[in-house]
């Protein structure tokens, strides 16, 4: 029997505007490409990382610390890709409000 690998990665929101609508959408889209289940957690609140409704509910602003948890065959790749997306500021670090 195969043990399902569980991976965790802690990340910090880097872009100035935080995880607002567009970054949240980018996160959910990317998460949807992996087979693993993705959970996003912040201060005890856990949401489905493949759900835009859930991710937006976290209201993560710049500097917020999040935990990404992946459970499934490709969880390692998922966490690498998703963590990098967050830490690279969703490609909009210098954006004006």
């Amino acid at each position: 029997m195969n043990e399902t690998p569980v991976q965790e990665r802690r990340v910090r929101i880097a872009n100035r505007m935080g995880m607002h609508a567009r970054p949240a959408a980018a996160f959910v889209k990317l998460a949807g490409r992996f087979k693993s289940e993705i959970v996003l957690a912040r201060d005890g609140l856990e949401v489905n990382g493949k759900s835009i409704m859930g991710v937006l509910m976290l209201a993560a602003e710049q500097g917020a610390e999040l935990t990404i948890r992946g459970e499934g065959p490709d969880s390692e790749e998922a966490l690498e890709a998703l963590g990098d997306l967050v830490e690279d500021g969703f490609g909009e670090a210098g954006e004006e409000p």
Partner: protein
Amino acid sequence: MSVTLDGLPASEGIAFGKVHLLNWAIPDVPHRTLPSGEVDAEIERFHRTRAEVKAHLERIQSEAADRLGDMEARIFDPQILMLDDAEVVDGTVQYIAENRLPASRAFHWRMLELQHLWRRTSNPMVLDRLNDLEDLQVRLLHRLLDLPDPQAWEDESTEPIIIVGRNLTPSLTVQMDPARVVGIATDQGTRTSHWAILARSLGIPAVVGLVHASRSVEEGQDAIVDGRVGRLIIDPEARDRDVFEDRRVRIQGWEEELAQIARLDPITLDGHPVALRANLDLPGESVRAREHGAEGVGLFRTEFLVVGRSSMPQEEEQYEAYRHVAETFPNRAVFIRTFDLGGDKFPMFLNMPAEENPFLGWRAIRVCLDRLELFRPQLRAILRATAHGDIRILLPLVNDVEEILRVRELLGEEEARLKDEGIPFASSYKLGILVETPAAALDAAELARHCDFFSIGTNDLVQYTLAVDRTNSRLAELYNPFHPAVVRQLHQVARVSHAAGIEVSVCGEMAANPLGTFLLVGLDIGALSVAWPALPEVKKVIRSFRVEDARAAARRALAASTSADVTRCLAEGLGNAVDLSAFSGRWSLSLP
């Protein structure tokens, strides 16, 4: 009779057209129960309708990409994802299957549940998305209820129209043709609403926060939208229209001139210099402020570090923010205001209890002195920033000498620790207070003995002097910075500062009002700090009068017996030096 409504400017420009009321509401969803045999077909119908609406939104998105660019088009991503979201879809399907509800009812219920979850957060970022949800509901429910797709506005005539509604949505805004829709006016919304961002991209003037606009207009009425001052004029008279035409032409000239003016010195016609600084809400604004001609930062608000956060800000993060601003303004004064919490700004992690009277409650310096675990790291971070510029520490809402002495004591302790740790700072920094209560203004002579400077915060001083809540729109008429009681306190604080030999400045919206600028310079207040976008306008005002005229007008204003008299003295003194009607002040100028 024309009716004038004042709101907030959201997209610049001025427009004249016929009112078209926005017809975009969630329809009534009747309750009924399905025969059990129809459940599977209903689930099928839900998925089919979802796909139709999704295809429709994707079409709007690709049009947006063509018209406005990819970045703007991505505003539609969350909405499109919501249509496929497990939280939305599975919940709805479950309600159809388990309760034999029609898809419309099940979907409506599920959305109400999700909205309820979202509303528990007070984060503006999330609240703005509720607007997206509502837009989806309008579209999907019309189809599920077999109603015709809603027409946001009738589109028969070819005349220019002004859309008036409760609020707008991005998907409606992006479909507007700026040649037809010349203006927008809404009851709700903010400058950062997604649709307002799109309106700016499209160049459609817009005013938000008008509260009752949609109930005050009728279909087909004439209206003027002034997105520069945030005003809607319904059924304008001939005179209003002349003013409108005139204003449209002048605003163009004015804007061209402002771009030039940022490079000139802020001196009066007769060569009297005024230090003109910027108010900042975020460190990232400092470069824009400098480009707009700021000679330093008169008020750097630090609440961005705490509001909406779930944990206390770390010293390092604060230090980086303060240093960034200091380095953007080498050899210029940077006034960092310590946390001004409470009132209308509550950070999550402080667990502040709801108060009966928050503006008279546990706020500003009172919170800081009670919560040293929050205050000490801020003082340390500011001290470390003194190594990189001319830093002034500004304490909000100080009433008592003891409060200043306590902060000096804390600063002394933190300086000693930094010294021990070998961390550099400049001990030449200055410490002063925001004079923003009548208590501080009346007691200025005592407070001045312990301060290196005074900064008068007129927003709060007006509110506390007149006992008028500045966030209560019903009292907006009474919130008057030109009340004789305010003018006399300004004079008193200025006189005391000069006698004590300390700098006095004003930060607050009053300084950005042309009559306010004129009065303050006339009272010999040598430094003004305003929101950075207003800097060129204020500089233009300063450059258009003589300081002697301002002093004479201020003397007359001090002897005036009513607010209207004060305003009249100032307007007469300023004469034709400045075109007041072109000015984009935050509140109406109430000119005689």
